[in-house]
């Protein structure tokens, strides 16, 4: 939809393609990152009985803008020993890895980057890039702590991709489609049609699925937490052990790129979980647009509901960060290999049987 609109607006398909690629970045990711950094500091503050940023603008609203402008002015240190090429590419690669995932995320029925029917497959492939970026950053910084941090984060992300893929597999097996757009469309109507509550068809199958869908949701939420390096799995940038992991040597805008990539990744992951289990952009209580029969209002409502769900899951991630301590590396690996993967397998089998009934 948006592509056709831009195509007849600009006349050339290249320009339209370029514009639609930029749209999610400037329309959503940058404002979201600014908002998310402030939200994190405010949430951290209020959880810890303090106020968080107050003096910069009204109640600290302009805090992140000030951070970004300050980071622009910072001197960009590249040490003599650093491996220049990888040192510069690493932040770009990490950011591209998480930004590319936004191409297929369905914000609302009309606005969708690309309606390819390999949606989830594409996302999992693209987020694999982040590992390469982190390893490059760790290696190029020529600093023991960064190397340790990069090794750990590579091992962590790879070993937590498997439970994510297994749960995604069980959803795809159940719904038969990989396209995020169709997933969201199938979960129309009210919240009891969402996949977390067994999907749209009213049948015995739906009630059998509910417990296993819940387990699937928990597994994918935990493993995406680990993929985004958030507590309790934020070992790569464990302040107390490895100073600050792979981005110890980065300063100025390169560090801002890592910072931005982390928050973009957080939203991308929450969006995927919301789309697969909580009905993407479908509203839980029907649309205002239908009752007031203003059909142009529906996409806006869908956009609102999608953002609401995404930010709710981002808030839960922040909440977890400021309450839970951090796991050690071997416990983290054990959690993935000994607990999450077996449970995800069994979950996959059971859902397979149920879909056959």
């Amino acid at each position: 939809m948006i592509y056709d609109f831009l195509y007849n607006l600009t006349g050339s398909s290249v320009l339209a393609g370029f514009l639609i690629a930029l749209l999610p970045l400037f329309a959503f990711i940058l404002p979201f990152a600014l908002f998310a950094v402030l939200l994190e500091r405010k949430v951290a503050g209020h959880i810890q009985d303090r106020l968080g940023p107050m003096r910069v603008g009204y109640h600290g609203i302009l805090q992140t803008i000030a951070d970004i402008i300050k980071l622009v002015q910072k001197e960009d240190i590249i040490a003599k020993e650093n491996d220049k090429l990888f040192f510069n590419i690493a932040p770009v690669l990490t950011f591209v890895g998480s930004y590319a995932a936004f191409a297929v995320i369905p914000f609302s029925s009309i606005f969708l980057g690309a309606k390819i029917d390999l949606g989830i497959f594409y996302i999992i492939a693209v987020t694999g890039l982040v590992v390469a970026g982190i390893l490059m950053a760790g290696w190029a910084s020529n600093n023991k702590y960064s190397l340790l941090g990069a090794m750990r984060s590579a091992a962590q992300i790879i070993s937590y991709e498997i439970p994510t893929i297994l749960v995604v597999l069980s959803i795809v097996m159940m719904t038969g489609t990989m396209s995020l757009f169709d997933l969201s469309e199938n979960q129309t109507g009210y919240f009891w049609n969402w996949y977390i509550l067994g999907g749209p068809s009213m049948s015995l199958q739906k009630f059998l699925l509910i417990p296993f869908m819940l387990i699937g949701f928990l597994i994918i939420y935990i493993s995406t937490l680990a993929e985004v390096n958030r507590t309790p799995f934020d070992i790569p940038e464990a302040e107390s052990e490895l100073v600050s992991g792979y981005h110890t040597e980065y300063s100025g805008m390169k560090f801002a790129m890592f910072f931005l990539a982390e928050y973009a990744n957080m939203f991308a992951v929450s969006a995927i979980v919301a789309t697969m289990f909580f009905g993407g952009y479908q509203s839980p209580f029907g649309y205002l647009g239908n009752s007031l029969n203003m059909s142009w209002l529906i996409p806006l409502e869908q956009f609102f509901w999608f953002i609401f769900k995404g930010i709710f899951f981002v808030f839960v991630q922040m909440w977890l960060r400021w309450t839970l301590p951090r796991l050690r590396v071997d416990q983290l690996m054990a959690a993935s290999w000994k607990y999450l993967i077996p449970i995800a397998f069994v979950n996959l089998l059971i859902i397979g049987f149920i879909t056959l009934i």
Partner: protein
Amino acid sequence: MSIKTEEMVLNMGPQHPSTHGVLRLELTLDGEIITKVVPHIGYLHRCFEKHCEVMTYPQVIPYTDRMDYLAAMGNELGYVIGVEKLLGIQVPERVEYIRVIMAELQRIASHLVAIGTYGADIGAFTPFLYCFRDRERILNLFEITCGARLLYNYIWIGGLSHDLHPDFVRLTKEFIREFKPNLKELNNLLTFNKIFIDRTANVGILPLETAINFGITGPMLRASGLKWDLRKDDTYSVYDKFDFEIPVGSGKMGTVGDSWDRYYVRVLEMEESIKIIEQAIAQLPDGDVTSAIPKKIKPPVGHIYSRVENPRGELGYFIVSDGSTSPFRVKVRAPSFVNLQIMDELCRGHLVADVIAILGSVDIVLGEVDR
């Protein structure tokens, strides 16, 4: 064909977010397993013993505060008891009771910092701020009595610098009433948190014989199973008038003497300190606190070793006097200095993340290690 691996030396340098100050740990790593730990200290050596030889007896008291800056009252008490024994002064009852109240309040404040930074080392940042919030209330109590928050110069030779503030007793009761639920909240937020237990149980196990051989004292020794507390075993001041028991490591979550035990002994000790404060406030006699302060302090020739149970262990002052107004030599047996020697024994075979957990449970203060 075995792959040639070589060990990596990692410097957890003087500036590291969780080395509790300026301590450099030289870790020799084989992969992530630690083979040797060499602590390098001396980055905060402030020449305390040189100052003692130059200053007069009362002038040394502010310097004792700056050694273990988290338990300043305990340091002053140790030094002052030693000099009073040299002089043979008998201090009025009220002063003894106030000194016990101050020392126990300081123990709670010091344990709160120890537990808070330990939680922050393991990654949970919020308990650190809850502990500091409760600690602020204790600092207010200290502030209304002697005007300072951290380093007080409050316990003088033969008495105290100020008497208690009129509503000190009411504020202390209020603090105790509000602190008990906070302690419960801290317990289910951190102590019995599954991840925290995984990170600390069975980590850095300290058997009892090595502890005694290494001269370990304080919560670390009690966590290894020995009921040894100077307040009961070598009673000083008026601690014999209160009944409180000594928490001992029981290996509830792992084996006896692991990091979790050392942490939990400190939590239980805070509850014991509250009991002592309540009893001390109930029996607080009245009288003048500055009556026994001598004008001229010239102790006879001789040497004495006085020791006090500080939050980190046994703090001992070996005072040698040559009859003049300033001490001839003061040697301090700092508990953190002795407890830190065990790091190499404890950390062998653990991971890098465990070093932080063990160092947090050993709970050292660099001002005291380097003196």
